[in-house]
């Protein structure tokens, strides 16, 4: 009898099978993951989560009998008051009196839990950041080192003993450095001949002595380790692209923005943030809200406090430029801007906004997404404006061929994700759709 402790054996034996399953059901799981966005609060979006897919796609069929029809009998325990010959009305939904429920045709859903990584991989699969080319190296931990072969000079700390000894050995072999063993043999021979009762071998002793001297000299001449043998590990500094990004969330918080609209905007921001976090090591978020004047606030205030006042979009744009100038040098930061608004703006402000956008903002940002949120139940189809708002009309002129600015309209939660995907879809180079 053996008792074996297997607890330390590597776990995760099922990992391969799990991955194969996800691979096989990828389309289904991906759809489920994306659908799950509709019903889930944005906060736990990147938690590990439960998904449900139709069983049909991952079914393992067998030749089996149906659960209904035909003549069957059942044995049950716990008879209370039935007597032989009693008739019991057939339970609705099939002939099996509960006996076959759960094992037959009934199960059409399959539920399981995805880890956070699996979820995000599937969720953000095939998306990419626009203009990824602009990645700045920033000071600090930007320099990485990697080993790059061997060199003949260096600090003692980086001496490569193995390499050095290998060189030494091959040099000693090549130069025929006498070994200690060879010298010892000759010495023994000399000692034997020098002994008083040694056989007479004239000249032999002299020859051996000369040979011994030659070997000792050669051994001193050819050193054990020569500076020529020394090898040092070489390290090469390599630039490590550490991209950092800042994401500006601009939102109109004037009275005309309803909770619903804010919710839509929030969802979009959350997605963008999630996505940027996967692409950059470091992402900062700046929340700027505006009425007729703009201010930088924390997230809580941004989403949950109500302000009253007019609407001056340019104030937010100006404030943003101020923050950029103060803290985020465009040379060092990738700047993303997402603006959400219901489209209201004081008409006289439009020219100023456009000017700011065109001259100051677009040249320095990676991407400027304008999201116009509408009321739930608005009959407009996604992205097709029936009536242009003031701001939309104005921005539309700017969103030119440069392609850094995109505009979309959203009315319902379920449209957020498609719009988001559409914006960040992986595209062939040079095929970027310019905003409308």
């Amino acid at each position, binding site marked *: 009898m053996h008792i074996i402790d297997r607890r330390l054996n590597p*776990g995760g034996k099922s990992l391969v099978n*799990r991955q194969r399953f996800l691979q096989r059901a990828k389309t289904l799981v991906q759809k489920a993951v994306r659908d799950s966005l509709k019903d889930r609060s944005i906060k736990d979006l990147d938690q590990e989560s439960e998904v449900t897919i139709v069983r049909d796609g991952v079914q393992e069929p067998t030749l089996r*009998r149906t659960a209904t029809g*035909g003549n069957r009998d059942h*044995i049950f325990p*716990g008879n209370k008051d039935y007597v*032989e010959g009693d008739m019991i009305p057939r339970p609705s939904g099939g002939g099996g009196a509960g006996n076959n429920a759960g094992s037959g045709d009934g199960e059409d859903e399959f539920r399981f839990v995805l880890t956070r990584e699996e979820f995000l991989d599937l969720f953000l699969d095939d998306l990419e950041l626009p203009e990824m080319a602009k990645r700045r190296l920033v000071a600090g931990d930007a320099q990485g080192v990697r080993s790059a072969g061997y060199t003949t000079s260096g600090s003692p700390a980086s001496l490569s003993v193995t390499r050095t000894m290998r060189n030494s050995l091959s040099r000693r072999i090549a130069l025929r450095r006498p070994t200690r063993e060879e010298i010892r043999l000759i010495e023994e021979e000399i000692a034997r001949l020098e002994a008083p009762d040694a056989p007479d071998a004239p000249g032999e002793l002299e020859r051996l002595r000369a040979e011994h001297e030659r070997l000792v000299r050669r051994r001193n001449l050819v050193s054990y380790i020569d500076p020529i043998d020394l090898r040092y590990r070489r390290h090469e500094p390599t630039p490590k692209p550490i991209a950092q990004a800042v994401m500006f969330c601009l939102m109109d918080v004037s009275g005309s923005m309803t909770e619903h609209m804010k919710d839509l905007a929030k969802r979009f921001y959350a997605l963008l943030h999630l996505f940027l976090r996967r692409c950059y090591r470091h992402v900062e978020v700046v929340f700027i809200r505006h009425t007729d004047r703009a201010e930088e606030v924390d997230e809580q205030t941004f989403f949950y406090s109500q302000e009253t006042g007019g609407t001056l979009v340019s104030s937010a744009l100006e404030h943003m430029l101020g923050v950029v100038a103060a803290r985020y040098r465009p040379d060092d930061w990738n700047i993303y801007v997402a603006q959400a608004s219901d489209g209201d703006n004081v008409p006289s402000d439009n020219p100023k906004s456009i000017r700011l956008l065109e001259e100051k903002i677009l040249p320095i940002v990676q991407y400027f997404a304008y999201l116009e949120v509408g009321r739930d139940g608005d009959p407009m189809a996604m992205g097709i404006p029936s009536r242009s708002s003031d701001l939309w009309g104005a921005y539309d002129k700017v969103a030119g061929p440069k392609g850094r600015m995109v505009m979309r309209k959203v009315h319902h939660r379920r449209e957020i994700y498609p719009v988001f995907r559409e914006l960040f879809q992986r595209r062939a180079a040079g095929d970027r759709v310019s905003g409308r």
Partner: protein
Amino acid sequence: MSTGPGPLLFEGGDWSFDLLKRIFDAVERIALEDLKLDTYPNQIEVITAEQMLDAYSSTGMPLFYKHWSFGKQFLSNEMLYRKGMTGLAYELVINSSPCISYVMEENSAMMQTLVISHAAFGHNHFFKNNYLFKQWTDAEGILDYLEFARNYITSCEERYGQNQVERLLDAAHALMRQGVHRYPRAQARDLKMEAQRENERHAHQERVYDDLWRTMPKAPKQASTPAGDRRKALNLPQENILYFLEKSAPRLQAWQREILRIIRLIAQYFYPQMQTKVMNEGTATYVHYRIMTMLHERGQLGDGAFMEFLQSHTNVCHQPTFDSGHYGGINPYALGFGMMQDIAGICVDPTAEDREWFPDIAGKGDPDGVLKHIWANYRDESFVAQFLSPRLIRAWKLFKLTDHQQDPALKVDAIHNERGYRNIRRALGRHYDIGWQEPDIQIVDVDLTGDRRLMLEHHVTNGVRLAEGDTAKVLQHLANLWGYEVCLDELEREGGKSLKRHSVKPQGSGLGETAA
């Protein structure tokens, strides 16, 4: 109130490897000396919950080939476990020699005692002695074979691509239930017997020879029926579909046949387990109950631990009634344990009724001997049909419902009374008869000279047909393996009236060799 002399094996719930060893020795002494069980050598492995989940999803085996369906299994178990909907089994035991039992590290010392009794001795004895396991499984070879299977399938994946292998495995899994030999096949007769038989036949012909027969007009000579020869050559009819494909599918490559064979042999290995669920669990439960009680009687198990044991034992053997809301079929632990307790009682202290129903064993006095004989020579169906006693039927208040398609209502056909006992017992036995519960499907013919269509028949019993959606999918797999069209006729058992014909063509040229 433990009375015996022995010092307690343990106090409290903690266990150590040293204690595990002492527990094992104490349990082994009772199992071998008192119960006289006959087991394979044991190997106890302590694992974590995570590892138990892993083991679950490869049908309990320590090593298995890779397939997505096991991942699916894993995900669904993991989900149920995490949500607390199911607990994990306390143990898992493998029919191999040495017999490997997994025990979980979370188990208390009492629990370890229980699972060692249950798995390492109860199940182990059953595996080694039951005729079905002896006939169909090779406990010594299974682990080596599984390792071979895993390596072989991995090497096929490397050579032919994971996709190819996965498609083949999908198809083979779909037909796995039709991949077992249900009956031990006729041994090839030896040549001496064959010669003797031929001589007898010849002598018989000499004896009945009469020249008059020569004058009879000859019937017009019939062309020999190629169909008959063909069926004989192909061993048709054949119900082991995987076996037939392995031997006769025209387009499969050698590695594909080998994989079909692997799946078929694994299916065959699990075949006895499907037929002995009640007996297997019943045996293990009966054995652990006996051993734990004896440990307690001998003072090796404290009162507290014994109460803890009774608690979990009762949970395992609980049978909810059909209307309780927890009913999920008949609990094999409860039925098996209940019947075995009952049988032991009949042997020792029979009532008049027992003497009438079980004249062979009533009052015979050697319950362990009787039970061991039963464990060795029965399967669920015959066990229930033979040994379900009226007492148990009354205690469980079993009743039988019949459900006829043409009737508007279900009828209570039998209850726990004098007239119902046999009816109920027979019906319950039937429920465990795999030949009765699984559809009877056979390959009957192949049109080898024509379009190579494979013909199958399903003999429909009691009007219960095959589930449509699944059948179409499985036949698609079958057609892909066969490489040509496949036809399945559903025939009524009486009269042979055709109820439905399924017909499927392979996708592309199927899984086998392409024309090139």
